[in-house]
């Protein structure tokens, strides 16, 4: 079968279990205390419960839901950062993650050096980054600060640089997690435009947001997660309306 006709992302019956007690047990004393209290074995928490869906090439899919509903966990499972407790996930292509802009930056290095470092994190060598260097600078509007250490940047400037790098380098799947909230209005508009033009070029997008308007504008399909369960999956407008109604009536 031609790999291009298979879905780009397949999520099969994924559950993600966190052991809350285990996470905090870091010293022997705490461990013993918890063992005596018998708190070590329960306190299980399911961030995702048997979630399945597929995303086809060229689709723009939004994940919506309240805080703690498992959206970011889902993205991390798809990005390959977390292994699901049960179930499986397949991604047939490269991923450009924008889960937190500037996560790959070293604060002591300059913007110029960080562009190469972040490019390498996404798997691109120096020659490739040389080619794209100018348009990254152009888009981020940081030409005057190119040799300034990133620790002196404002959070908005870091977000610009991170967004410029992540969207400049081509990937099959772009994963965007609430990153547009940082920049100013003009830059947000610019980012939306760029995402739209990337979608027109056939990039697949996974988008996490609370902002129903942005979801309706960018995405054709939405998946609503609620306490780790998939509540709805369908056309963005319908799912957003359902979600908003549930929120208003206090059922979400």
């Amino acid at each position, binding site marked *: 079968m031609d790999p291009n006709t298979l879905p780009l992302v397949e999520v099969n019956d994924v559950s993600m279990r966190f052991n809350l007690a285990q996470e905090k047990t870091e010293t022997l004393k705490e461990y013993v205390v918890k063992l005596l209290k018998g708190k070590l074995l329960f306190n299980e928490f399911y961030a995702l419960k048997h979630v399945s869906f597929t995303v086809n090439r060229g689709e723009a899919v939004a994940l919506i839901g309240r805080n703690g509903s498992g959206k970011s966990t889902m993205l991390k499972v798809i990005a390959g950062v*977390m292994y699901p407790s049960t179930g499986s996930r397949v991604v047939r292509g490269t991923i450009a993650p924008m889960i937190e802009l500037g996560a790959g930056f070293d604060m002591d290095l300059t913007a110029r050096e960080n562009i190469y470092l972040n490019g390498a*994190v996404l798997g691109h060598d120096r020659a490739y980054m040389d080619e794209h260097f100018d348009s990254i600078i152009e888009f981020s509007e940081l030409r005057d600060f190119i040799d300034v250490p990133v620790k002196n940047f404002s959070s908005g400037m870091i977000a610009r640089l991170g967004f410029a790098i992540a969207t400049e380098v081509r990937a099959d799947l772009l994963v965007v997690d609430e990153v547009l909230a940082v920049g100013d209005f003009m830059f947000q508009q610019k980012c939306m435009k760029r995402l739209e033009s990337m979608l027109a070029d056939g990039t697949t997008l996974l988008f996490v947001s609370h902002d129903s308007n942005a979801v309706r504008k960018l995405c054709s399909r939405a998946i609503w997660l609620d306490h780790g369960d998939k509540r709805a999956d369908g056309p963005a407008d319908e799912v957003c309306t359902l979600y908003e109604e549930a929120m208003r009536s206090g059922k979400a």
Partner: protein
Amino acid sequence: MKDSFGTSLERFLAHLKTYQPLIHELVSRDLKVKYRRSFLGYVWSILNPLLMMVLQTIIFSFMFRNDIPNYPLYLICGNTLFTFFNESANMGLTSIIYNAALIKKVYIPKFIFPLSRVVSSFVTMSFSLVAVLLVMLFTGSPLHWTILLFWVPLLFELLFCCGIALALSSLTVYFRDMQHLFSVLTLGWMYATPIFYPLEQLPGFAQTLMKFNPMYHYINLFRNLVMYGNIPGPNTWLACAVAGVGMLAIGLLVFRKLQRNFILYI
């Protein structure tokens, strides 16, 4: 993780190729950050071992008596190799927990972090070899042809350090106490390695025990080649190779077993 060690070794090598640019960037970052804003920059990599050698020569020649010929060279050979081990083990140890922010957000094969730290230390050590050469010229040490083989012990030590760094970095994720424990351990290890004293000074049983100290073999081989123009017997070479390859294999196994759940603990 159900696949055999063979296929995961294959994947390891494939990853190594794909992410070679990242290792390159991380190493150059380490070196840049290390000497950023210092006046002499990379010169410190040469100057530091020289100053250390001068200090130790003064201490150990005047305060304690020893009759090692060309003591400054004897010292700096041992120090250079041990500093490389010490630095790569200690930097490797924290490499995973320090890069937690990145590991939580982007998929990167995680062994890249300890490995790039070891490579950074290796590059620093390569600069320090200039200091060794300077000491040889200053003290008029004869230049034997065996010096051309100096890279063999360094290469085996590199494998050994990679193994140590892989094992320590993954264990530290689960037992943060390793950080504190290991600094004491390396200090003990340093005293247990003939860096500033001759092996012959030790009692018989300790000399036998020394055969199990890989650092002794690397330093011994290096000194034989560089200082004495002497090719040691096959046992020394074998010890160096077995310790290097063996430690790397152990490191990879431990790391492979533990890396899956890193994300839950960092």
